[in-house]
């Protein structure tokens, strides 16, 4: 089973292309408020994660996802 940290590491690397403000990425960083992802970028980013882990991320979880840490936890649950 993949560890939480490995999910985080993947998210950090997948976010690099979108990190235009060059923030230091941590669990607490918000995808929209801090990194400034547009709704279209969120969908593209989600697709990257889906293909990497071969999962589908339901739209229902998105309202509960604010930070990179939130997303890592959700992806981990989905991939169990």
């Amino acid at each position, binding site marked *: 089973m993949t560890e939480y940290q490995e999910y985080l590491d993947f998210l950090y690397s997948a976010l690099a292309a979108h990190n235009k403000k060059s923030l230091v990425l941590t669990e607490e960083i918000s995808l929209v408020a801090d990194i400034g992802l547009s709704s279209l970028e969120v969908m593209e980013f989600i697709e990257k994660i889906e293909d990497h882990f071969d999962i589908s991320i339901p*739209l229902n979880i998105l309202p509960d996802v604010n930070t990179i840490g939130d997303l890592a936890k959700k992806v981990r649950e989905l991939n169990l």
Partner: protein
Amino acid sequence: MLFDKFQSMASFQADLAERDIAPFGAVAEQILSATEGTVQGKNVILAGTNNYLGMSCDPRCIRAAQQAAEQWGTGTTGSRLANGSFAEHQALETEIADFYGVDHAIVFSTGYSATMGMCATLAGPGETILLDGDSHASIYSGVKQSGAEIIRFKHNNPEDLAKRMRRLGDRAGSALIIAEGIYSMLGDVAPLKEIAAVKREYGGYLLVDEAHSMGVLGQTGRGAAQAAGVEDDVDFSVGTFSKSLGSIGGFCVSHHPELEAIRYCISAYIFTASSSPSVVASTREALRIITAQPELRENLWNNAHQLYDGLKALGLGVGPSASPVVAVEMEDRSATIQGWQALLDAGVYVNLVVPPASPSTNFLLRNSVSAAHSSAQIDTIIAAYAGLIENGVISIDKKA
């Protein structure tokens, strides 16, 4: 503050007001025919409607509505489940089921409530819905209410759908797949043959929203599933009476007898008044006409090809193939607004489409043709675009 979230819309409106442009509030001051009206005091060709077969002004439909109003009154004042089921509603249900060659039909007050109602009700908590990413707002609104797990597949991409069905494992068998026939903004047709093949491989149920394809595609006008030869794979067809039938209202038809039980579980069916008898009567007449006159569909497609070929020859950014909806891709919001007004000044009304109504981040001038357009009118529309290019409102090098 409650109103903070409306600020960006308010500033967009202010931008339009400053330029004295009102593309969303464009008022038809008069309707002269299915293809002509008066907007901003000017006679214009209507090239931004969904009046695909010109039924909204057919004298036979108008007469049917008049007679029904006299016979039944102007409204039903109630739900189909209470006092709002008239013989007219039942007759329309029988006729729309016959049109689709199935035994079960529900008629709704609008297309939006038909699609939303079915999408909200069919799948529930613990079940999964897979929907095309570019689905209409009525579909999104329904699936959000459903309580089901919602998964998007890439627009018109059966491989992506198949991948996601595979990921569902055992749960794929009860999943609900949702696609449209023709997509309303770009006019592109869903690959229903391939989507049906995915359903056959993994199981599940298929709902197709034929809002823009009923009357437009298929040998007898049943829509995209008929055109693709996969009607047997479609579990639920939904659609609207507001486009090719020129009235208002929606429907769901199915070969599943369970539709009769589902009917009593749909809030958007139960808790709203049924259609006015006059609306139902004109819908019934329009359905009879489009069945008896398949040449209407032929005219529509001739016009579609003429407009598509004409705009393409000008070098405009249009979709990959001809369709009754021909969307011209524009550079940005400002150019789209300017182009929209310039077309109106040239006597052509089209639709201005900006995100989020458009797929992804497209800015579009959406044109749609009708069987009722004359070939000369289509030429006028093309000439108006040519004028925009000459005046530099649209520059071909940037977007083509």
